[in-house]
């Protein structure tokens, strides 16, 4: 029933209106129709919708191209959306909102954000892929101010040798994601932000500032020696994990041990009191893992 209404109204529109009006009306209608079918439409609907569009396709092909250009005008910073490719290809799905809408294009009103779900992004460093070694979660939240992030919306992504490769961020809404872009640009463009899938977010676990990395432990140090190094600190003695890392191609490998603490305050207390103190004659550098 709904489709018949839709087709009727479209035909009536195609008879009378000017081309611009036609196009806006048509797209509005498609959006409205699409919204009514909240779940992914079944095949018959899909065919129906595409047939609706195809009848008037020749007339409005050029105007479609116009809208497509307006939509896909990229902002100067890099937004690589995973959905960009499917923008017009499958026109029976929802029309995704592109970031190019901060311009005052005529198509702005009906491309307001309709998605109220969480948006996930990944931040990487722009030059040499380097993020600050001393970056805290709060630093990143402050960097992306206005995006309404909390401590638990940020997860730091370390690789096997505990080198920071990227940061996963959970934005509460689409607008905060775009605000994040704006803030990154405002703060010097040091980082890239790209959209990722929810699955990546869910897999990753965060240390939450409760783990400390000890770098430069001598290779002949035993668990007792490590515990002696950390005496006076309230750590979790079952949580020692050891890894070897080579800094540059021409330097010696160093041993790295990660240890967990029950609270963040314990970890930072250990860092404050034990950084650069000695374990078996070697000074140990410590870092708090976020």
């Amino acid at each position: 029933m709904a489709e018949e209404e839709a087709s009727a109204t479209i035909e009536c529109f195609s008879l009378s209106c000017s081309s611009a009006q036609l196009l806006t009306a048509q797209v509005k209608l498609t959006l409205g129709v699409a919204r009514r079918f909240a779940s992914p439409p079944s095949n018959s609907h899909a065919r129906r919708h595409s047939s609706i569009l195809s009848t008037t396709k020749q007339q409005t092909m050029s105007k479609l191209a116009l809208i497509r250009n307006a939509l896909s005008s990229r902002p100067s910073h890099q937004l690589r959306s995973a959905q960009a490719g499917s923008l017009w290809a499958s026109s029976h799905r929802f029309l995704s909102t592109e970031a190019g809408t901060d311009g005052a294009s005529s198509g702005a009103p009906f491309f307001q954000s309709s998605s109220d779900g969480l948006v996930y992004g990944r931040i990487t460093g722009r030059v040499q892929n380097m993020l600050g070694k001393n970056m805290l979660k709060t630093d990143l939240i402050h960097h992306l101010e206005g995006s309404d992030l909390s401590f638990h919306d940020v997860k730091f992504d370390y690789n096997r040798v505990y080198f920071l490769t990227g940061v996963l961020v959970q934005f509460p809404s689409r607008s905060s994601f775009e605000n994040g872009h704006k803030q990154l640009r405002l703060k010097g463009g040091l980082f890239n932000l790209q959209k990722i899938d929810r699955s990546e977010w869910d897999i990753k676990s965060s240390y939450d500032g409760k783990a400390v990395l000890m770098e430069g432990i001598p290779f002949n140090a035993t668990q007792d020696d490590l515990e002696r190094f950390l005496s006076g600190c309230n750590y979790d003695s079952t949580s020692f994990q050891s890894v070897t890392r080579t800094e540059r191609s021409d330097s010696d490998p160093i041993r790295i041990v990660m240890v967990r603490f029950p609270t963040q305050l314990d970890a930072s207390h250990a860092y404050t009191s034990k950084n650069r103190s000695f374990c078996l004659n070697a000074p140990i550098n410590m870092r708090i893992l976020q």
Partner: protein
Amino acid sequence: MAAKSALLRSPTFLPKLLPSFPLRLISTSPPLSQEPQLEPSPSPPSPTPLPPNPSTGSPFYNENWRSPQPTAAAAASLLPVPGQSTAAGHMMAFSQILDLSGIMNLFADYVASQRWNDIKSVFEYWVRSLDESGKPNKPDVNLFNHYLRAQLMLGADSAELLDLVQAMQEFAVLPNAASYNLVFEAMVKELESLNNQQYESADSQSRKTALVEATTKLFDKMLAEGPLPDDGSFNLVVGLLIKAKHFDPALTYLDLVPKYGRTLNQGVYNGCIQFLLNSNKPDTATSFIDKCKASAENKNLVPTWNLCHHIAEVAFRSDNSKLAYQSLEYFARWIERGEKTRPQVQLSVDEGLAAAALGTASRTYDSKLLDGSWQILKRSLRQKKLPNPETYLMKINAYASLGQVKKAFETLNELEMAYRDAENTNPELFSPFTSLHPLVTACCRNGFSSLDAVYLELEKWSQAEKPYKSIAALNCVLLGCANIWDLDRAYETFQALEKLGVTPDIHSYNALLYAFGKHQKTSEACNVFEHLVSIGANPNATTYSLLVDAHLVNRDPKSALKVIDEMVEAGFMPTKQMLKKIRRRCSRQMDYDSDDKVQNLARNFNIRMGNEVRREILFNLQYSTNY
């Protein structure tokens, strides 16, 4: 005759710089044929020679220069004979009528349009042709430099360019720094191509070392006698040495930079700092940065943002406070620069980095670094956010290690105002046993006198206009008294808490318990515990561990175990240290029942107790009378 004298007059310069390549000797005279001579028996006195040839300025004076057409005999000159292509013929003819300034303009055009071949051929033709006064055209140094540039662009290597530079001597033209710069550029190009080669062969290695030696020798010569090197020379040479990873000559030349008042360009500056850091020489990096800042030309050089981070990282790793401070200065300059550009870029320093700087300041006792790092933190946060509590704690730690107790307490005040009433604040944040322990140590640094001074100060503050009444601060004093085994002061401080208008919290009771326990006043310690339970304060893990300690001081492992049972009932877990202490006491007293209980506990809570081998070493020393 004229040829020989001309040759004698020109300074003999035979550098033998590139021995692996055939030297082209500068000889303008064709090889003389040796004619057999008679025995030099009393030779007639040779007639006084004629005065030397007055004409200078062109080697072509030695040849038949009066006919403007180049002949095959003139091929002995180093400058190659220009080709007789007809396409260039009109150009030659045109250039023949130009004088020096005209040729300069022409070459300027050619350089702009990058017509290197044309420059080359026109130059060669022009020096052979006669000018309006009928003498061979004499180029000056700029013209020659154009020619060298053309040769460089056409791919001449450094050896050829060097020979050409020497050829300038014949024209009685002194090469200037720009000429040598072109030679250096050729060397740099060659080194880069060698570096870009996929596989390092022994051949390329030796070529590289040869290049480096040649560069250093040439540069030394320039410094010693030749034209003074200019900015370009320094930059090229230092850049080349860095790329070839020969750092010691680079360092010596870097020292000369401020002496000659030269400016380094940005790329070379970055490169220098990078290699100084990588080669593990933070002190040299510090002195280099200082020197550059001192010299007027170089003081505006700032490394890239990432390089600043790298400098900071190296400084923190090696506990080099000067280098850390310099990196913070660079960050500050970048932030200023960012705020001045339009559109404004708000750069900021990570709080983690500032915290690491605070840590370095506390270890190296550097108050300048402390102030600097706090300032840059404040600048970066731009009043939009408060620093984390952990950062405040690090600042307290830093002040405490420097002995500036008053400032430490002021920071504690800030921390309390910011975070005392915030939600999800860890109650251990203000515990003098863990977080504020550095402050406690600083309070009792000079024994009771410093404790009294602090107490009086706190009393004054609590009665000031804006009263500062902080239980955390007074707890630090209390624990300090306990630390120096001063029970009377501790008790008095505890009683004074009420007078000052603060209520004791769990930490105050813990400190008092600690004080009693240390003096083996176990019953009083237990009284304190019962008192705090009856008031309604909840004991925390520290309370129980202090109580266990009190019983162990009293040599009573059974009571200690009772406390542990209570603790387990209350939901806390006994720690490894606690169980080890009880076990030790049991073994000393040979109390096997309690020892069994301890082992059960360890098993229940999965605590790996380990052995006491190290401690036993002291008791197992073998004394003997032999030496």
